């Protein structure tokens, strides 16, 4: 049984970005992680200003080609190759940088500081590998360049772009991968065929938001076309509607799933980060699948191994929550939870045609919502983080359902960024409204309708902490009674720590 490897951008010297080094951690189950020594440090002229983002390509013969962006001594962004010093070391502790680095420099017409984050490679029908690298043209057009290679040391830049979207600006951390249309498993990055769509994802440097779109990849022309140009990369669906950036996936060939990692950066001030001595976390890894039911979006779901952290569970059947009320849920410790909720609503007075979204937060009362849970709340509700649905009979005649997380009262602390996040979520006929919420002290990951819309929240409670954290149901709608059915697990800690090397004398 092998190890999952995570390489992450890390500053060993400070809790603010800089001196970027490759941290390294390993796990058997994507949940319990062990820290290893740094995989790569900025010790060459071609990466002395930072060993930035990269991707691994696993070759059929077992080799691992690691391409990464180095920021050179002249602050030029170049792509470098690295590989394990010892492939038979299951921990892959030592890495060698290819002596001929850099293998790619910014091509003509591309700014020398807008050329970064090479993707995992995929094989085309001609047997050659391709990688794609995000950039921009004329400062405003987000693009992804395609390079072909047979050996990962020499490359040919293909004409044109895999895709380009005007107005989106620089594309960081581009990710490109296939999903099965009628499948229940992930696909190898090189997979292609009739029952497959390709996902193109970009992190927009201008807005610090991750976007994706579904489309078709033509392996002969190396072009990708979105299914819906109105929801193209950077102008349509977000990967996550909360505090989330620089995400990327990898293919887990043993359990045949596509796994998504995402970075939750801090919303407190840099001074706070320096004082506390650390910053940034990663979300719980998520499995990604195409949503066969809607055909227009992906589904994300926490990896099943999270269940290994489950302790005892509590069930609640059809708890009635009347308009304007808050119902406490008696579950013991409420700072580490895996919550499943399903809602049924009953109209008790005339609903109204109205326009509402997530933006006003949970205090805004509309006729059919908001209702949901209050996570990381304290007994007196001086701090609370509502995660909720807001169905709306829209003025265009349709029923829209918003799924939102409201951080505005999440903390009494003054200098933390407190947002209301959310979006509409597709709800099909005969579907009940349901959410799954992972609660972990200061992170809330909320999944609606099986993972169609996901919101990550970064909060800094000062009262609702440890034993003082509570969970409530709430209904702030004016015209509906809400009945909630819940299953709530307390989650154990993952005890993430340095790898327990044992001296072999």
């Amino acid at each position, binding site marked *: 049984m092998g190890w999952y490897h995570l390489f992450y951008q890390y500053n060993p010297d400070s809790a603010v970005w800089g001196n970027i080094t490759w941290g390294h951690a390993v796990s058997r189950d994507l949940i319990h992680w062990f820290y290893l020594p740094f995989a790569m440090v900025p010790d060459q002229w071609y990466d002395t200003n930072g060993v930035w983002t990269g991707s691994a390509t696993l070759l059929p013969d077992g080799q691992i080609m690691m391409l990464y962006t180095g920021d050179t001594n002249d602050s030029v962004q170049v792509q470098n190759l690295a590989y394990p010093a010892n492939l038979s070391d299951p921990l892959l502790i030592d890495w060698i940088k290819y002596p001929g680095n850099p293998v790619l420099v910014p091509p003509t017409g591309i700014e020398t500081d807008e050329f970064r984050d090479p993707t995992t490679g995929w094989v085309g029908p001609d047997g050659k590998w391709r990688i794609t690298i995000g950039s921009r043209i004329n400062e405003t057009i987000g693009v992804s360049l395609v390079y072909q290679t047979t050996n990962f040391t020499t490359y040919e830049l293909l004409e044109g772009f895999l895709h380009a979207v005007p107005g989106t600006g620089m594309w960081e951390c581009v990710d490109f991968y296939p999903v099965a249309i009628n499948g229940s498993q992930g696909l190898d990055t090189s997979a292609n065929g009739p029952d497959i769509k390709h996902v193109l994802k970009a992190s927009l440097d201008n*807005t610090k938001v991750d976007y994706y779109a579904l489309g078709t990849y033509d392996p002969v022309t190396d072009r990708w076309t979105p299914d819906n140009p109105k929801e193209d990369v950077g*102008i349509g669906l977000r990967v996550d509607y909360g505090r989330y950036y620089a995400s990327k996936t990898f293919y887990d060939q043993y359990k045949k799933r596509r796994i998504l990692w995402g970075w939750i950066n801090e919303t407190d001030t*840099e001074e706070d980060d320096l004082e506390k001595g650390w910053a940034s976390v990663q979300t719980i890894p998520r499995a990604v699948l195409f949503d066969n039911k809607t055909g227009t979006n992906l589904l994300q779901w926490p990896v099943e191994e999270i269940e290994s952290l489950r302790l005892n569970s509590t069930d609640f059947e059809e708890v009635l929550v009347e308009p304007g009320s808050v119902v406490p849920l008696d579950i013991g410790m409420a700072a580490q939870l895996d919550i499943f909720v399903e809602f049924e609503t009953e109209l008790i007075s005339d609903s109204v045609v109205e326009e509402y979204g997530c*933006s006003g937060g949970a205090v805004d009362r509309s006729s059919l919502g908001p209702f949901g849970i209050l996570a990381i709340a304290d007994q007196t509700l001086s701090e609370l983080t509502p995660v909720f649905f807001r169905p709306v009979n829209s*003025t*265009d005649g349709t029923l829209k359902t918003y799924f939102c997380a409201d951080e505005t009262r999440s903390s009494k602390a*003054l*200098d933390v*960024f407190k*947002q209301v996040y959310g979006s509409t979520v597709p709800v099909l006929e005969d579907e009940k409204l349901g959410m799954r919420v992972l609660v972990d002290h200061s992170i809330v990951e909320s999944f609606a309708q099986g993972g169609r819309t996901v919101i990550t929240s970064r909060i800094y409670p000062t009262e609702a902490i440890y034993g003082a954290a509570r969970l409530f149901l709430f209904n702030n709608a004016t015209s509906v009674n809400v009945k909630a059915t819940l299953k709530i697990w307390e989650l154990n800690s993952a005890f993430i720590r340095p790898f327990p090397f044992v001296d072999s004398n």
Partner: protein
Amino acid sequence: MSLRLKSVTTIVFFRKNGVVALKTPFYDLCLSSLNPQNPITDVKALASAMTNLVLSNATDTLSYIQELIKQGADPQLQKPLADCAELYIPVVKYNLPQAINALMRGRFGFTSYLLSDAGKQAQDCEKNFSGSSQSPLTERNKLLSNLCDVAVAILKLLQKG
């Protein structure tokens, strides 16, 4: 004092009889008698005035958006207008009041962050109106974005101390 501003087209600073005034197409603000002996207070007062101006401008624009939605004159604009309202509401309700509070407590960096974010929301609102639909908010969005830039520039002076 001089401020380096990006292409500000509709904001005019002028000094007349010891009064610094800020003239905009939608809102007039005058500060009376800035005290030349105590520069830091002056800059902080200016930052405070600017932040309040950003809030009134944003509040005014939000009401305008909601009025346009209510009138429903152009069905093609309903969705982009609703999306704009979604962007403006938290700015008016939460982020700008938080910025005003942070400024009062001397947290200039955080104030700047919130103002920058507000400016971005205005830009994102404008982006909702792509080629096919003509934005009724262009002047207002541009103004808010510019005002935020000015406020951030002033805050940089404060941060330098």
